[in-house]
């Protein structure tokens, strides 16, 4: 079979449901903006000409098929991937100009839990967090009783909850979540919903890629088209 030539994906259509921009006005303007973003994955153009804006306290859900570029967009927003074109603005300032300062605003939850099996549950959160913050965060995800257990003893769902706890140990205004509820039970999803609500109540922004329903009321959907 002949190898098909590399083709760029289609440019994406942004569906903003009615009320999306109204919500923006209520919260007093957009804080996180993407302007004309384009990114390559290897040799392939994953997306281009992508625009969006999220207000303070707002949430944006990234929806679409596998390989459409949802995770790439999250990594791009985190400053881990450099955009080929366009810019990401936070309160109107270019975030790529000062990556360490931007990293300070970010709480990123990737596919992987980034948990060290040799450390205990609490020690996994210790870098960059005070003991009090660790206790509160473990309480929020229901792992307080397992704080001194080595992380290798945790189940897959408990590891995911520990990764979620990392979001809460340090105040960061932008939460970037890649499939956050993968492997979680219903009670944990409900607890995570409370964390998300508390974060948004303080004006925090959530951008989440997901295939599962998330406890994010009035989130704006951002639908990626199918790969061409």
């Amino acid at each position, binding site marked *: 079979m002949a190898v098909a030539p590399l083709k760029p994906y289609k440019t994406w259509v942004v569906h903003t449901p009615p009320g999306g921009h109204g919500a923006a006005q209520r919260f007093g303007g957009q804080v996180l903006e993407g302007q004309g973003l384009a990114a390559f994955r290897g040799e392939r153009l994953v997306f281009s000409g992508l625009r969006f804006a999220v207000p303070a306290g707002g949430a944006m859900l990234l929806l679409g098929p596998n390989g459409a570029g949802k995770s790439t967009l999250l990594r791009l927003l985190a400053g881990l991937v450099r955009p080929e074109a366009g810019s990401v603005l936070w309160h109107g300032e270019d975030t790529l100009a000062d990556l360490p300062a931007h990293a300070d605003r970010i709480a990123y939850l990737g596919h*992987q839990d980034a948990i060290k099996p040799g450390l205990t549950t609490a020690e996994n959160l210790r870098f960059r967090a005070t003991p009090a913050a660790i206790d509160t965060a473990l309480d929020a995800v229901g792992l307080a009783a397992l704080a001194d257990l080595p992380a290798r003893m945790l189940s897959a769902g408990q590891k995911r909850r520990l990764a979620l706890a990392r979001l809460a140990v340090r105040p960061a205004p932008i939460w970037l979540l890649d499939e956050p509820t993968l492997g979680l039970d219903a009670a944990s999803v409900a607890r995570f919903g409370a964390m998300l609500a508390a974060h948004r109540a303080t004006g925090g922004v959530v951008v989440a890629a997901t295939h599962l329903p998330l406890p994010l009321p009035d989130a704006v959907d951002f639908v990626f088209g199918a790969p061409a």
Partner: protein
Amino acid sequence: MTLFLGLIARELRLSVRHGSDTLAALLFFLLAGALFPLAVGPAPETLARIAPGIVWVCALLAALLPLDRLFGAELEDGSLDQLLLCGLPAAAVAAAKACAHWLVTGLPLLLAAGPLAVMLRLPPEGIPPLLAGLLPGTAILSLLGTTGAAIVLGARRGGVLLPLLVLPLAAPVLIFGVGAADVGASGLTTRANLLLLAAMFAAALPLCPLAAGAALRHAAE
């Protein structure tokens, strides 16, 4: 600065938890050094002649052992992203890693080098210049090794590639390090050799973390 020290503390805590990995480099150093008297014979004059070379080559190889997992484990479990997003520049993350590598591998090697040199019958006047050379020497190896580990990160056979990349770069360190101990053992001044080693350390200290940081950013993309 608090973050930088926090990152080093995290690395040290991880090394303590994985004690066997940490000790492996030190035991390799002692065992490999102990093989030489068996191979070349116990004649004191022969051993004393090659002792500095043995100590240095064994230290060089032992320092390479933990490099394979230095960033590999972080990349596999997603921690690398978290490290790059910890608020430190990527170069500072690499510098903290190099610093932790020296504390966990370089410093124990430095402490074990004295007893090994005595075992190999190095004359007593050769031991201070040997250790004085190993002090900047192991630090340079940690810096070069961290850079190499960051560069081969994500490569399919990174573990094989790493020594091929780092060992040639470490050759000048080896030459002047062994030179210092040789010259010292014959009672002459070691100043030139040690100053050259210090100069190499001064060059590696800012350059290696910069290169390693750029490589880490590239690996995370």
